[in-house]
């Protein structure tokens, strides 16, 4: 790198850049996207990323359905989303160009792998004429790079050794090299990664290294780009950082919670997109006291987790929409048996199988009220990738403190999306106090006795003298015996509701960003935090005197929610559904909350939120 002679190009400073790599699923776009992100993070920018997979494993190469993309936003200030508009697009084939170019800003950079624009590729992408030639891309800065040929040239010395196929596979690193040059990204982190990854296959490591450097040098020498960009380091809280996705953070949060509780944890799950990564991660933590059970289906997963909870272990299950639907009946059992259970729902596009790889927030009402009978439980929602860590700990804390099932909602966007995460100091966390009674008070053990929060004792098998039986039939309070008594039923219905309501007592109050009262409050929940926060900040920067608040606790709500709402004339609730939180807020507080709803399998753009906010505000 240091051997590269600097050519005289303009060097422009930018605050924030959003780059998207896209190509066929087989083209390794997720990989180079990740490498670009790591380099940016290590360089010192704030970053936020979002990968966008096709629903098919591998749709036919070159087709629209097979396009895979990875977007990185990196900046010199705090950012919370992968960026609305793409500043630079790297497209490896016509299909990738077609599906992605509409997200590029006017005047933005479009780098295409020219070699992939032959007739058959164009046809597969549904282009009648070559878009590189017909002027349709004139509003962008189009760069046609014969990436395949250049890559092959760069590797021709070792082509004999590794074969043409392996040579071709390196073209993503060539593209990465170009982007790295264009945005002044350090190559070292990627070189380190290559060496680590292909250590045992030195020729492959060599090939990828050559491709990467060739791309970088190409940027330098080809005199293609008039300008090169710099994004300064961000002023971030000092500390040691890593990049983390929501699913990773959630897994780490669960391990942490188990440690804080000094209690083992069993994660029982059935694979489903986009929740499977939690299972994948946790299955590698056997030495952390974590067991995983890949069940035969979601019902077996949740009931096994219930069994584990009964046995005194933290029972956790995780899934997404259709799997969540299947767990409905068993969640009722957990409510009736008052066992601590955590159920993670990484929401995806619905209804039914829906859009498996796309994001959505449409399982909220199912989580809050979607069970037979009056069946209250706790529902919480993470608001960002890193927040999944904190909310996982909250979930275990609430479940074990109140002896209640907790549904933790995340979504495909924050589950797969990544942001920098400052490594926490485990010694700073508040412990989770677990109390397994060891003997009966005054001789008689009562499985449904109550503490000050109405929690019942978590007595576990193996404890002499506390033998007891629980199940799904209505229970008599205190004794836990089956009871068909009408008054007891009413009492228990109310008690279970009150117990969930009591959770609010230990929750932090809802905080408002911006003025604490006024005309407009933008109220969000869950994974839309980044976009809403950014839009609200911008609106305030533009002089709009608006506020925003974001719910992480959905049932019960934080106790000050009603008071907060009363302080604003209008409440705008943006959601990636048709208005589910809005329904709950209207029913509870009788305020005419306005909905802003988008159900397109995609996160909010900051711009569209901003527009909506402005529409409902008056400039001060």
């Amino acid at each position, binding site marked *: 790198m240091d051997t590269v002679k600097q050519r005289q190009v303009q060097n422009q400073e930018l605050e924030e850049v959003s780059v998207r790599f896209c190509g066929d699923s087989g083209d390794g776009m997720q990989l180079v996207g990740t490498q670009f992100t790591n380099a940016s993070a290590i360089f010192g920018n704030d970053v936020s990323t979002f990968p966008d997979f096709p629903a098919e494993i591998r749709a036919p190469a070159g087709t629209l359905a097979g396009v895979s993309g990875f977007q990185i936003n990196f900046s010199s200030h705090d950012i919370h989303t992968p960026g609305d508009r793409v500043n630079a697009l790297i497209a490896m084939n016509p299909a990738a160009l077609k599906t992605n170019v509409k997200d590029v800003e006017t005047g933005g950079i479009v780098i295409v792998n020219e070699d992939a624009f032959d007739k058959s590729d164009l046809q597969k992408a549904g282009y009648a004429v070559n878009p590189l030639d017909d002027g349709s891309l004139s509003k962008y800065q189009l760069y046609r790079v014969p990436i395949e040929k250049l890559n092959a040239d760069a590797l021709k010395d070792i082509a004999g050794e590794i074969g043409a196929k392996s040579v071709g596979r390196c073209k993503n690193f060539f593209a990465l090299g170009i982007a790295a040059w264009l945005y002044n990204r350090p190559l070292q982190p990627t070189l380190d990664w290559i060496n680590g990854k292909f250590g045992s296959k030195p020729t492959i490591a060599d090939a990828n290294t050559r491709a990467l450097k060739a791309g970088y040098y190409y940027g330098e020498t080809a005199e293609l780009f008039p300008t090169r960009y710099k994004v300064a380091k961000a002023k971030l809280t000092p500390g040691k950082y890593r990049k983390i996705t929501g699913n990773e953070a959630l897994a780490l949060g669960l391990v942490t919670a188990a440690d804080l509780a000094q209690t083992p944890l069993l994660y029982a799950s059935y694979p489903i997109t986009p929740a499977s990564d939690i299972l994948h991660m946790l299955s590698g933590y056997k030495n952390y006291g974590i067991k995983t059970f890949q069940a035969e289906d979601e019902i077996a997963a949740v009931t*096994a987790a219930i*069994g584990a909870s009964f*046995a005194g272990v933290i029972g956790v299950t995780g899934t997404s929409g259709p799997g969540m639907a299947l767990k409905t009946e068993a969640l009722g059992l957990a409510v009736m048996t008052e066992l601590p259970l955590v159920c993670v729902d990484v929401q995806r596009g619905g209804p039914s199988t829906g859009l498996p790889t796309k994001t959505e927030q449409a399982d909220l009402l199912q989580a809050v009220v979607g069970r037979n009978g009056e069946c209250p439980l706790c529902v919480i929602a993470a608001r960002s990738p890193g927040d999944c860590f904190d909310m996982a700990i909250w979930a275990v804390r609430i479940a074990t403190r109140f002896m209640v099932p907790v549904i933790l909602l995340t979504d495909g966007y924050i589950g797969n999306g990544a942001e920098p995460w400052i490594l926490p100091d485990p010694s700073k966390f508040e412990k989770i106090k677990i109390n397994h009674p060891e003997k009966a008070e005054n001789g008689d053990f009562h499985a449904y006795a109550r503490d000050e929060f109405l929690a019942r004792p978590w007595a576990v098998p193996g404890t002499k003298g506390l033998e007891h039986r629980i199940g799904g039939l209505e229970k008599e309070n205190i004794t836990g015996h089956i009871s068909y008594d009408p008054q007891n039923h009413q009492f228990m219905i109310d008690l279970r509701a009150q117990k969930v309501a009591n959770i609010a007592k230990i929750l932090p109050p809802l905080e408002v960003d911006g003025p604490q009262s006024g005309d407009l409050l933008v109220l969000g929940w869950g994974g839309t935090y980044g976009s809403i926060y950014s839009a609200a900040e911008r609106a305030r920067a533009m002089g709009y005197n608006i506020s925003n608040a974001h719910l992480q606790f959905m049932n019960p709500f934080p106790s000050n929610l009603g008071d907060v709402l009363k302080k604003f004339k209008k409440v705008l609730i943006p959601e990636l559904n048709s208005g589910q939180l809005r329904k709950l807020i209207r029913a509870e507080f009788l305020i005419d909350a306005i909905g802003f709803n988008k159900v397109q399998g995609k996160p909010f753009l900051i711009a569209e939120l901003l527009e909506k906010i402005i529409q409902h505000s008056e400039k001060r």
Partner: protein
Amino acid sequence: MHTDGSLPVLTAKDFTTDQDVRWCPGCGDYSILAQVKKVLPTLGIPREKFVFVSGIGCSSRFPYYVETYGVHSIHGRAPAVATGIKAARPDLSVWVATGDGDGLSIGGNHLIHAIRRNVDMKILLFNNRIYGLTKGQYSPTSELGKKTKSSPFGTVDLPLNPITLSIGAEATFIARTLDADPKHMEYVIRRAAEHKGAAFMEIYQNCNVFNDGAFEYATVKDMRPDTTLYLEHGKPMIFGKNRDKGIRLNGLSPEIVQLGNGITEDDLLFHDEKMEEPTLAMMLARMRHPEFPEPMGVFRAVSHPTFDDLLTKQVDAATAKLGRGRLADLYDDGETWTVE
């Protein structure tokens, strides 16, 4: 524990709860409860280490009547709940009580998966060939053509055979017994308790309210010797009131032969419950009344690794190799960078 370190001697009474037993008078379930309570105290396991798990059905009320830990879960899910318990706490002795509806209809999948994983649990399948609790619909073990509340013209569903199904799932322990023969049931339950792995027991149980006499041929004392075949490991297959009939192999099929007239015990099939191949077990499972005497006893008892053992070993191996994980290391994984 006693001061000398030995376990206190328990009796069936120690396993009796304060709950009224709510089965119909005359129900076969009572007999099963009695035999289980007879066996439990003799196993050398402290009472608080047992867990009974059930689904929903008359049979699934079982846990309420055994003074130890119990979960009366939801319909069909007992094997999954039990798997969770055993995975979490391999030190517990886990038992499942289920019915032909609970275990074979709605819960069939969990049953076969618990069995194929060889999770160490004892499964008591109360087969009364009817849905008792919901008052008399046919079950997956009801005979073809049976008239019930939900099949006034007779069923059109060929029944499932619990034993062949468990063989199909490659169960390591398979047995059959019946409510009318408490001694034999006690023996079978004890054998299951001693087995390491998933132990599947089909128990013929009379529902005297909705399907009275379903197994009359096997329960009426007088008929039993001719309609059943008590299996004994290593012994020839002899049956009949006068113990003068036997089962002989004809090609790959069983046939009934009369002993004497040149046919001796040595010509008969000898039972081998330890055979790794389930061929014999399969043959026995398909022997059905009235063509054949129905085998009672242990069809198969082989030793395979259990799910819970393998899981424990994996955890131990990982911990031995990687050391007990520390949170700080967990976080500090993959690429990191420092902001000053």
